[in-house]
């Protein structure tokens, strides 16, 4: 099909009876976010394997493309998936920038797109599209959920330290919104660059500020460095460290040694969540990969299930994107993270948020769920 043909004539997608359903998966498989991407992919594959790679009698094929967490590359790859591979459905993107970058393309070409990680608020707010649904989280959910709790249980003043990029800013703004609404006071804010290597200067500043606690948003290697240096520079014994779940998530906690112990964080899933769905998930994951699942693996697992259930609901006929997104909107089940369903207004997931605390268990730092905030919805604007 030449470009002229495919753009002038509307090529009808025939409901291919018994043919494969192609799902385009756009994830960063190289670069800084590679391990997130890989975990998402592992989670998806785990689920699809569980259902024998078949939905409503049709085979499922994942076409995975490396977005390199670069919006340009992401768009190029999305076009490949859509135009070249003719996928029925798109899922993935760790980076919000990539999700934003392909938003118009997906919207224009009417490809159902289930966002399985990227948390930028606008995706289900100002950039909302009929074809875009998000099963992961929004920055707002992460930050906002800890505000009230922190005021009630931690202290009346906090200092905010967050990585300087859109996500870090959005999460800390949401926290601040909730925290100040509860009556707390933010005494200072600092935004070290993403990938900063030495926090000593910031930490000295924070140490000398009068705050009961520090709300931090860092992830990956930044989280390791920040939490370690937080302890080394003697802040841990003076100010409680609170933040998003990524500060002490599965992929960094071990590397932090015991520096993270005592940290309070809010998140939508934790390894130690004590439900039978979670137990089953962890067991299945461990059996297949011989490792603990991370939160991204859980996101991939859920995304796969949502896709499968939606496809099941349309009887395996993915030819009409509107029907597919409608089916997605109706999916609800109890996931390893608790009960989930979609907000039909915002296209964003409604889920529980958990307050977790890191503690030392047999010399290892482990998280414990200390509070559940049920059915958190994104306000959608």
């Amino acid at each position, binding site marked *: 099909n030449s*470009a002229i043909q495919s753009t002038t004539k509307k090529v009808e997608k025939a409901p291919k009876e018994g043919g494969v359903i192609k799902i385009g998966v756009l994830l960063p498989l190289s670069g800084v976010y590679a391990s997130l991407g890989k975990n998402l992919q592992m989670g998806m594959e785990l689920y699809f394997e569980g259902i024998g790679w078949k939905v409503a009698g049709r085979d499922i094929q994942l076409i995975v493309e490396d977005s390199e967490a670069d919006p340009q590359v992401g768009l190029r*790859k999305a076009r490949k998936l859509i135009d070249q591979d003719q996928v029925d459905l798109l899922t993935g993107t760790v980076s919000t920038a990539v999700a934003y970058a392909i938003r118009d393309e997906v919207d224009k070409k009417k490809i159902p797109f289930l966002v399985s990680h990227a948390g930028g608020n606008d995706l289900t707010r100002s950039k909302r599209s009929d074809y875009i649904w998000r099963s992961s989280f929004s920055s707002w959910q992460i930050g906002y959920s800890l505000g009230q709790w922190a005021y009630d249980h931690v202290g009346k003043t906090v200092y905010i330290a967050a990585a300087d990029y859109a996500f870090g800013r959005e999460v800390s703004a949401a926290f601040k919104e909730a925290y100040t609404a509860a009556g707390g006071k933010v005494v200072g804010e600092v935004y070290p660059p993403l990938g900063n290597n030495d926090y000593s200067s910031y930490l000295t500043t924070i140490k000398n500020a009068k705050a009961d606690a520090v709300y931090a948003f860092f992830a990956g290697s930044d989280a390791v460095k920040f939490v370690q240096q937080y302890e080394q520079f003697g802040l841990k014994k003076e100010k409680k460290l609170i933040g998003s779940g990524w500060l002490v998530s599965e992929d960094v906690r071990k590397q932090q040694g015991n520096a993270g112990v005592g940290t309070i964080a809010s998140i939508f899933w934790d390894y130690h969540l004590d439900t039978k769905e979670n137990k089953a998930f962890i067991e299945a994951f461990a059996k297949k990969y011989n490792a603990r699942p991370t939160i991204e693996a859980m996101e991939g697992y859920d995304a796969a299930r949502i896709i499968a259930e939606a496809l099941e609901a349309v009887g395996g006929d993915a030819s009409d994107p509107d029907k597919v997104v409608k089916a997605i909107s109706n999916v609800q089940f109890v996931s390893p993270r608790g009960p989930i369903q979609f907000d039909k207004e915002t296209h964003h997931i409604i889920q529980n948020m958990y307050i977790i605390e890191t503690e030392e268990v047999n010399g290892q730092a482990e998280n414990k769920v200390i509070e559940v905030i049920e059915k958190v919805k994104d306000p959608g604007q």
Partner: protein
Amino acid sequence: MNKRMFISAAAILLLAAAPFLFSLFYLNLLAEILILAIFALSLNVLVGYTGLVSLGHAAFFGIGAYASALLSKEWSPQFLVTMLASLLIAAIAAAIIGLFCVRVNGFYFLMLTLAFSQMIYSFVHQSTTLTGGSNGLSGLPSPVFGTLDLSHPVFLYYVILLVFIVMYIVLSLMVKSPFGHVLIGIRENEMRMKAIGYNTTLYKYAAFIIAGAIGGVSGALYSTFNGFVSPNDVYWTMSGSVLIMVLIGGAGTMIGPVLGAAFIVVLETIVSSYTTMWTLIIGGVFILFVVFIPQGIVGFGRALTKPSANRLSFSRKAKALVKKEANQ
């Protein structure tokens, strides 16, 4: 000469026929190649002709991209308007940055350009309200020309092709002009050029501005083409990959950077669809190039066709041409 004309005509025809030959995906890839080729050509003015190796050329690409994005969003989606305005803004930025950069040489020039581009990156990355921060600006209005909507990929492709051809012609005329010869002279021996009476700093400055302005055009095309712009456009990795395009293709030639851009884009897209270890393969290719084809793709082609071809010697060719024209 005739052979050359023939090849050029064939190439243009082939490019013009592309929408009828290739699928949409490849057409889009081709459009992207053309845009990056303009970008590489603009850098080549500095690296290949003037001998100034810049590792901050993405600054102008990014400025063009953001300028066009913001203008189309806030002001007017008129293609010509955004394009010219971006060119102008990039040129002004180059005029300011160049003021400092052309005073230093060699590695210091490389690092100074890097520093400026990284500062622009920092700005873009941080000023969330204006530029969307790390998420970039997306959902840009599709470009229009007069009342003609250019959002259709085939239209857009032709527009890009047109800009590419114009830029290619403008630049090749420039590098073969006396002005271009002066740049080459500066690359070879700046001190001697001064002794001959050339204000080399001014020429370098001019080259810097031209390169910046055209870099801005390519950036503007890119954001128009993609419908979004992100800080990656300004990041040093962008400067790095365009430098590699120039080097792999063959610095100091016109067709080299174009081939380099095509080679890198195709390689990256194709290889990374098959393996996540694509950096390994691309890195390996770079190494093989240096070891076996140090002159770049163009040099390789030349070596195949006429083994003892000298490097660029502008007078001999020009002389033959002039003699011929004078005879007519």
